[in-house]
């Protein structure tokens, strides 16, 4: 087990180095001179030259890359062109909102588990086909289309929930402490959650179908265990593994910012921050957001993989 974790940590380091190289190259590819961008439209050539030296843009590319990595390693993501504020500070203020949304969405998507199990146990019945077809249709709905729909139906037409912005206060930064906060959370969280409920139930059904046909389940039945214990203890435990993996990776992806959902609902978070930065061509913020999201995503993948190896020993020895 420790060997496995060590191997994955080494891999992680290489992935992060690769991520930093690619991000750096992309920034380097930008047409035009970042010094001009940073200096603003009416800057004197002298000011541009100063900024170029400040940023080290006059140095060779490998020196620039070295400085870039050095800054990253110190948690310095640069400064926003638009607000002249450290990107790190902006991220810190956006993260709790995003985390709240991500956690709520993942909790909702777990509803897919019982739905998938039910479908699998009733394979080829009307309920199974109804659930599977619905899942497939919802799974195909782009998240921003569903967001627009939810916003219209529940926010505008029925008018029962706030459909934009944030509000209220929280406990420990993520747990809603009042109705105002919770009500702003419901629509975005349900939007993100529903699509994943569909996906999870589809995957849970497939995993469950595979498990209930396996030899050890047949053995469990043959030795006369009650059906309840065959399903809950022997089948579900194993069929949950792939689905929990999906949920874990989803959490990692959502913690990096749900840009489309946050944008539709004008809900402040990492995603909306990046969206605003894109419109303002505020590159350090965009890059900072992408690097943060990538980092969280990679870590979530690592945690999920290690957990997977822990519960399923077959993985460790591959």
């Amino acid at each position, binding site marked *: 087990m420790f060997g496995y974790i060590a191997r994955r940590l080494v891999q992680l380091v290489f992935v992060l180095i690769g991520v930093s190289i690619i991000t750096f190259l*992309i920034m380097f590819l930008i047409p035009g001179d970042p010094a001009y961008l940073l200096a603003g439209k009416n800057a004197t050539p002298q000011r541009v030259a100063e900024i170029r030296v400040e940023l080290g843009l006059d140095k060779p590319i490998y020196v620039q890359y070295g400085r870039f990595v050095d800054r990253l390693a110190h948690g310095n993501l640069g400064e926003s062109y638009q607000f002249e504020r450290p990107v790190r500070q902006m991220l810190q203020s956006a993260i709790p909102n995003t985390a709240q949304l991500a956690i709520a969405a993942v909790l909702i998507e777990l509803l897919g588990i019982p739905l998938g199990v039910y479908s699998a146990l009733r394979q080829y019945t009307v309920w199974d086909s109804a659930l*599977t077809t619905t899942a497939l249709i919802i799974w195909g709905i782009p998240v921003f289309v569903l967001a627009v729909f939810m916003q*219209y139906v529940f926010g*505008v037409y029925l008018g029962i929930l706030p459909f934009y912005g944030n509000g209220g206060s929280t406990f420990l930064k993520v747990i809603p402490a009042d109705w105002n906060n919770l009500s702003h959370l419901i629509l975005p969280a349900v939007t993100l959650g529903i699509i994943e409920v569909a996906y999870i139930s589809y995957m849970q059904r497939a995993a469950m179908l595979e498990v209930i046909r396996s030899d050890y389940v047949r053995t469990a039945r043959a030795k006369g265990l009650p059906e309840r214990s065959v399903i809950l203890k022997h089948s579900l435990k194993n069929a949950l593994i792939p689905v929990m993996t999906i949920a874990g990776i989803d959490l990692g992806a959502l913690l990096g910012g749900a840009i489309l959902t946050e944008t539709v609902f004008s809900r402040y978070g990492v995603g909306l921050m990046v*969206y605003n930065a*894109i419109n303002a061509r505020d590159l350090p913020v965009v890059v900072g957001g992408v690097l943060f*999201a*990538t980092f969280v995503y990679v870590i979530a993948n690592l945690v999920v993989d290690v957990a997977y190896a822990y519960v399923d020993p077959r993985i460790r020895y591959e």
Partner: protein
Amino acid sequence: MTDTESAASFAEPQLDSPLPVGSENRPVSAKPLGLWADTWRRLRRNKLALVGLGIIIVFLFVGVAEIFAGVTGINGGYLAPYNPNTPNYSIAKQAPSLSHPFGTDYIGRDVFSRTLVATRISLLVGVIAVSIALALGLALGPLSGYYGGAIDSVIMRVADVFFAFPYILFVLLLVVVLGPGFTNVFIAIGLLSWASYARIVRGTVLSVKTMEYIEAAKAAGASDLRIIFGHVLPNSMAPVYVSIAMGIGGAIVTEAALSFLGIGVQPPTASWGNMISDYLNYLQAGQWWMELFPCLALVITVFGFISFGNGLRDATDPKLKE
């Protein structure tokens, strides 16, 4: 009747017939169903997949017709009842009617025509983005799987890095850097999704390369490239077709998302994504038709690709064969 004749009649005469290979009379029953015939036989039973296939065919038909019109300039470059981009203020914001089945938008453009013509953007993005990804994946994946060792490690570690980026954010970053616009959207999507094709092909190549017919090709003195691209790859493609179907659906959603965020296809060119973003305010004012129809077009198309892709996966999966 002589003894020899009766013996021959027991011994399935067609099988022993001395007909030359390739002759029309060559028995087909001796051969198992080919991959495609077998896949089709199993796919036919999956109604959702057939619905998906129907949607894809309609989508392709409309998309190709629109591209054809755009390239040749027939009828002003579009196939639709009205010009999709010409405003007509006197009929702005009209609800669906016989002459405008999807209604008109806030400056009197026909929503049906715009939805129809936008199919071309989705088709082009789907096909070109997936082609770029596929070209990279099909070049690197087989090399990785076939040679193994250092080549494999390098290619797969690079693929790991591409997997590490959250998809939509990375495409956004690329489009911000390259500049918004149609071409950059599919370059960005293509550049980012090659890794999954490479990984899939690598996996199947690993299992195919140990087969006897590959050994036979080696023994016959075929070059590595010929073995990889002539023998191994064609037999490793089934899972790739599934990802192509899913990938086209994914690319269409990504384009729509980018255009929705305002950094994809730029107005006045109609794309489902920029229409959805453009008409959002009118939905809140109760003029639902502008928003509804591009949303439906997008959702139905994506559903088509996903359900067909899922059906194809089930139909080609050897584990599910009865």
